């Protein structure tokens, strides 16, 4: 299955093959989880803070489906 991973802020420098908006299509085995995706792009769990699957907060144990959009952020806050 294919999912779109979308990285932000300085995480864009830590993963290769991203387009100008920090996106990349990743092919995963059926039944793969968000954690499998994180490892597939070479990101370690300690390097990010938020994992958002299809606009909803999620975590690495979440199973993914074909066409899912996974946004990954470092620690961010402001006003």
């Amino acid at each position, binding site marked *: 299955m294919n999912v779109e991973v979308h990285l932000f*802020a300085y995480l*864009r420098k830590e993963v290769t093959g991203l387009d100008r908006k920090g996106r990349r299509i990743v092919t995963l085995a059926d039944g793969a989880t968000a954690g499998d995706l994180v490892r597939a792009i070479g990101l370690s769990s300690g390097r990010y803070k938020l994992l958002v699957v299809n606009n*909803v*907060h999620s975590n690495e144990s979440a199973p993914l489906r074909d066409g899912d959009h996974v946004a990954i952020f470092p*620690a*961010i*806050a*402001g*006003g």
Partner: protein
Amino acid sequence: MNKILRVNMESLTVSEEPLKPEYAGLGGRSMTSIIVNAEVPPLCHPLSAENKLVFAPGLLAGTVAPSSSRLSVGGKSPLTGGIKESNSGGTAGKALAVLDIAALVVEGKAKRGKLHVLKIDAQGAQFLSADRLKHKGNYDTVAALHRKHGKNATILSIGPAGEMKLSAATVAVTDPEGRPTRHAGRGGLGAVMGSKGLKAIVLDTAAGHRPKAAGARAFHKAVKRFVTLLEEHGVTGQTLPTYGTNALANVINAVGAYPTNNFSSGQFRGVEKISGETQRARIIARGGMPSHACQRGCTMKCSGLYPDKKGRYLTKKPEYETVWANGANCGISDLDAIAQMDRLYDDIGVDTIETGATIAVAMEGGLAKFGDAKAAIRFLKEIRKGSPLGRILGSGAKLTGQVLGVERVPVVKGQAMPAYDPRAAKGIGVTYATSTMGADHTAGYAIAANVLKVGGFVDPLKPEGQVELSRNLQIATGALDSTGLCLFTAFCVLDRPEALQAICEMIGAERGVEFTVNDFLALGKRVLKAERDFNAGAGFTSADDRLPAFFQSEKLAPHQATFDVPEAELDTVFNF
């Protein structure tokens, strides 16, 4: 800080009085709100002689505690009709502390048509004519005052908006480079300053002294710990210095809470064009400063300097709220246009949140199409001109919506909502509804736990847990706003309790008293009680602690969410 300066604009006199015992231990917002509640008749007209404009530095102002120079400005708000504390970065908190001023209380009203400058230095205070500054923007005003009083003077000023007494008018505060880029923005306190005939306050600190901590060793140990904690935290130590507040654009958009086209949707297709990532890359490419401190001694440095296409300074790096209000909320994806507006906002002296929301309402009302950046810039120039349309737009979203017959007007207590849709982030919805300030995001920044997983996680799409979250944050913020510390230090505090301990030790060592976390929370509660008391006297009831009805019925994409925290629960926020 040991004295209160009372400035009478009718007699043009300034008197000093020692800090009353009941005001001891107060600073920043606790000082302004308790004075306003004690001394301003809550039913007075906000532009009358009976209203007061109170400036107060925080408890840690002027010390070497990092990020401690925030300024609180208080009074009865012409926008909400309730109490207002408006908080600003820049150099004023420290300047007042160095002049030993715990509160500057501006009272009365100048003779009709008269405009004055108040200069304060270590020797005393004097009034100067502001005739030559009439109608001048903040940039020209500050330049003229720096030529006369020296470029190191801190200047608080109003632009033409404040002189016209527009309800969205701000009080500008100079940054370390002497530019009027920081503002006490919300609630129209610039109009109060204008109504009193005060164009600017010049603070000359040349012969002043930094406050000396009663327990210097304990103080410096706590400062060192606090600085280390701030540097270690991912937000305060890395993301804020690198991207500033506009790093929020992409994450708030990703969770569907980024209000677009006047709060009609939760995601904006053009978000990447106005994101913190794009903003940083552009600033660097043009030779600007992507990281900059709005006050000396701040390690978070979330501000910046934004150049135009030719690499010349245009404005400070626009903040997340400004970029949202005049960007996504207006359907605008042109970052340079937004920066141009930011420059105009700083110069005219109007709130970027209120006015961006107003422009979006004007777009919905048919005065321009969503996405028309040129029209948005024209609207700001109209405000500066003071035409009837300009005066309407400069008076806020509620009035503009009424004039144009618009139903979707996102305000609470007459103040426009900031950059988070309450249907997709229900905790901030509770804060918007119940805060004494009107729709305000900083008063209880539930986004931290709702979206950013700072200080835990409370699901933003469920009604459960939001009231407790907002209550706790509103109390803590009431206290933090009293210290002079930038609210952004809270991101570290929410994850590292040792940081709150360090803040309490700094306050205790500074004042030579014991000051515990319980004392900190008690201070926050005292602030909220005083503000609620004032608002009750001004005629506010629980009916005012509600979001506009459309937030309960209109479903927000992408979640198809509505705001469903029960009203009976909203009425329990202040049960403490």
